[in-house]
């Protein structure tokens, strides 16, 4: 379905009935946090949809400008609180560009391993939540959370925290692996495919899932590019753009993996892309856990406290589980960043929410929003 041009003043709804104004959210389980959509309905059909943000706004960027460079790392955990390690990496990488630091080999491997594990967590949780939005209450989500817990155990034994890991530093990582960690990680990675098989056997061919997702919320590739949509959302529309391949940041150039692409850009493709990306992440993990070298985990030039980069600016970006996560930092030579900006993939992926929802029913809006994969900690910052 092609989106029709949006208009704020619809004088006459197509059916001739008066429009119904509904405020979907902010306290609604399907909005994944506190997020509101002002929806105008013609019967069950959406004719206008305006997202309303800011319920969780705390001006993260201003707080970071009043902190030292190091002091902001724990705050980045709280952006997308499901994927704290990728947030850490994006910020650490940007400051490394700004200050000219190079993390050692072992730290690069650790970063890849941890961010791919984070991708597994994010995508499996997303698949569970998406099914919950369709009415499969609880069970698929609990299957996903069971696997997530095993990975969180790995994070806990390495960083001391399950979700707010606060682990990466400029020029490396905070601490080295505890004994036995690699073996434990290998066994988690080895058992993960059986979870995916089970999950797919239960769900992917399911008639209700197909009926609710196929042809729903179609996003054309051209609009997706123009609207800055990134991550699995973009690739589900068939655009081959994965920053791990394009920028080859860190050491991603060394690993063999494929970039799954969708054909139609509907909700089903977005669900399937995530399942396929988990398979690719497992391939990367398999290689990285085999090849990880011994050695230092911090750049000897790195200075954590009282870091004062030369005046200048840097933009760094990574392929986060939700899309392009970027940080833009300007230094004026002082101990705090002069300007600190987060490019939140969740917020920018919401740009085309209205385009995808027009002409669909209210129940579809919930599923479409679920397939975008937002976290309000990052949308509102």
């Amino acid at each position, binding site marked *: 379905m092609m989106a029709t041009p949006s208009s704020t003043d619809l004088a006459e709804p197509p059916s001739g009935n008066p429009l119904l104004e509904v405020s979907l959210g902010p306290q609604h389980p399907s909005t994944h946090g506190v997020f509101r959509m002002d929806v105008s309905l013609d019967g069950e059909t959406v004719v206008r949809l305006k997202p309303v943000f800011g319920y969780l706004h705390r*001006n993260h960027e201003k707080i970071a400008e009043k902190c030292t460079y190091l002091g902001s790392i724990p705050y980045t955990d709280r952006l997308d609180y499901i994927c704290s390690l990728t947030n850490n990496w994006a910020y650490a990488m940007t400051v490394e560009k700004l200050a000219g630091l190079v993390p050692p080999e072992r730290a690069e491997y650790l970063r890849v391993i941890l961010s791919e594990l984070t991708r597994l967590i994010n995508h499996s949780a997303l698949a569970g939540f998406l099914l919950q939005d369709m009415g499969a209450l609880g069970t698929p989500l609990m299957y996903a959370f069971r696997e997530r817990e095993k990975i969180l155990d790995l994070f806990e034994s390495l960083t001391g925290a399950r979700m707010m890991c606060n682990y990466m530093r400029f020029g490396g990582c905070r601490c080295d692996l505890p004994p036995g960690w690699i073996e434990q990680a290998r066994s988690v990675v080895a058992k993960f495919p059986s979870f995916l098989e089970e999950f797919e056997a239960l769900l992917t061919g399911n008639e209700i899932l197909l009926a609710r997702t196929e042809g729903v919320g179609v996003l054309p590739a051209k609009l997706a590019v*123009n609207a*800055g949509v990134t991550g699995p959302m973009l690739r589900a529309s068939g655009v081959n753009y994965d920053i791990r391949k*394009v920028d080859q940041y860190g050491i991603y150039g060394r690993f063999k993996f494929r970039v799954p692409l969708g054909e139609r850009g509907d909700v089903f493709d977005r669900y399937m892309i995530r399942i396929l990306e988990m398979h690719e992440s497992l391939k990367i993990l398999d290689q990285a856990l085999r090849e990880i070298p011994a050695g230092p985990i911090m750049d000897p030039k790195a200075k954590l406290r009282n870091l004062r*980069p030369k005046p*200048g600016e840097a*933009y760094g970006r990574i392929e986060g589980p939700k899309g392009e996560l*970027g940080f833009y930092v300007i230094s004026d030579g002082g101990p705090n960043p002069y*300007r600190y900006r987060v490019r939140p993939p969740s*917020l920018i992926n919401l740009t085309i929410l209205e385009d995808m929802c027009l002409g669909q029913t209210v129940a579809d809006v919930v599923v479409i929003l679920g397939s975008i994969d937002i976290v309000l900690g990052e949308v509102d910052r």
Partner: protein
Amino acid sequence: MDTLDQLKTRIEAAAPGAQVEIIPNGSPANQPSLLVDGGHARAIAQFLRDEPALAFDYASNVTGVDWPEKVTREKVKVKKVVDGVEKGVEELCEKKTPAYLEAVYHLYSMANKQGPLIVRMRTENRTDRVSLPSLTPVWRSCEFQEREIFDLYGIVFEGHPDLRRILMWPEFTDYPMRKDYVEADDYEYEPTPHDDVLAKAKRHYPAGGTPA
């Protein structure tokens, strides 16, 4: 990809009269940027997006920066006639950089897999002449991000389809990300205020009294 100098020449040829300046970047990141004038920004953006060799089809990050007036003092050697003899005297000279707000666009090309190209625009000052052309008609991804700049910095984007506050509430009047923003002191509620919080809270009590 062309170097920034070549790109500047091409932009000036494509948009006659455009003023383009290369802003160097002192950090090891080596990401210099192009400063374009607001009057030609839309035409330049169209050119950057539609020219097949460039094809910057993806505006990734759009953000604002606040640069208040800056006074830098430097010593300048001045020749002066002292007691009939010409001498080189060092004098303290104040140099004022006028204040402005800046919008920064990080552009990438998905078609050609290149970037980032960093484009900046500056307002004339940061009080009354703060409008810039919106680039949302060229790249939809600017829609929410330009709204955010309007909300937090107060840059008015002309030609934006839906310029409203996005993170702050509509009745809010200030621009929180500006460097001279004074944060409200009455948002923090404590049932038994003490120390700093009490001092702040007292300013909101009725004269001479305790809270109602």
